[in-house]
């Protein structure tokens, strides 16, 4: 296990707020520094890892799916799981009740189902915790 870990808590759904990208940037930078990262996805953030997300073309720009290369948040999260290696861990928990009410249970490989108790446990074990609220 790396000797430092940060825990992030997110709430925003995909494609709605810049906080998603910022949180992933923080995670990426932390992993680059050998710092393990835990993410607790609460409320709309549980939709960030949905497997059914798809890229699409852009009719305003006249691009095809291939041209546009529209990212998916689940793709970005999946890439962070792949990036983490050795002692440097990337863990993601989707809050179960939030998943149920959104029908967001079919997610990519990597995330686990959990709840506030898991988030609290992580906060006790981490070097620091950053709660990123929603607007």
């Amino acid at each position, binding site marked *: 296990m790396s000797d430092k870990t940060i825990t992030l808590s997110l709430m925003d759904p995909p494609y709605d707020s*810049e*906080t998603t990208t910022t949180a992933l940037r923080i995670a990426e930078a932390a992993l680059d520094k050998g710092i393990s990262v835990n993410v607790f996805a609460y409320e709309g953030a549980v939709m960030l890892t949905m497997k059914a997300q798809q890229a699409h073309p852009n009719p305003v720009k006249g691009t095809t799916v291939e041209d546009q290369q529209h990212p998916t948040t689940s793709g970005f999260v999946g890439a962070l799981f792949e990036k983490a290696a050795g002692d440097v861990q990337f863990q993601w928990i989707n809050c179960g009740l939030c998943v149920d009410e959104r029908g967001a249970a079919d997610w990519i490989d990597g995330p686990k189902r959990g709840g506030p108790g898991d988030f609290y446990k992580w906060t006790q074990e981490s070097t620091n915790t950053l709660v990123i609220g929603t607007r």
Partner: protein
Amino acid sequence: MGKYLLIESRDPYEYGDPNYFYELARDLADRGNEVAFFLIQNGVFPARGGAKPDKIGELRQAAPRVRILADEFSLRERGISRDATAPGVEVTEIGALVDLLVEDGRKAVWH
């Protein structure tokens, strides 16, 4: 005293609410805390030189010991070049936020 990383992601010119966070930075510094005030996302708008009111100037005057940083990516995304930032703003990479986040004893608060 303590150490804080206050991360302001919101534009004070859009909603009045971020003014509270600027006042908090001042109040925490007045209590002897070491405060790093990190502007990110739309929170970087006051960092553009010439922004009115001058939130950065006001904070520097009220609390000269507060360290004011701004995320390079958020600035660039908004077309604000390093040369165009207000005096007293340290333009920095996201890695600097992570370094502050993992410093012993630093409380991290996002707004």
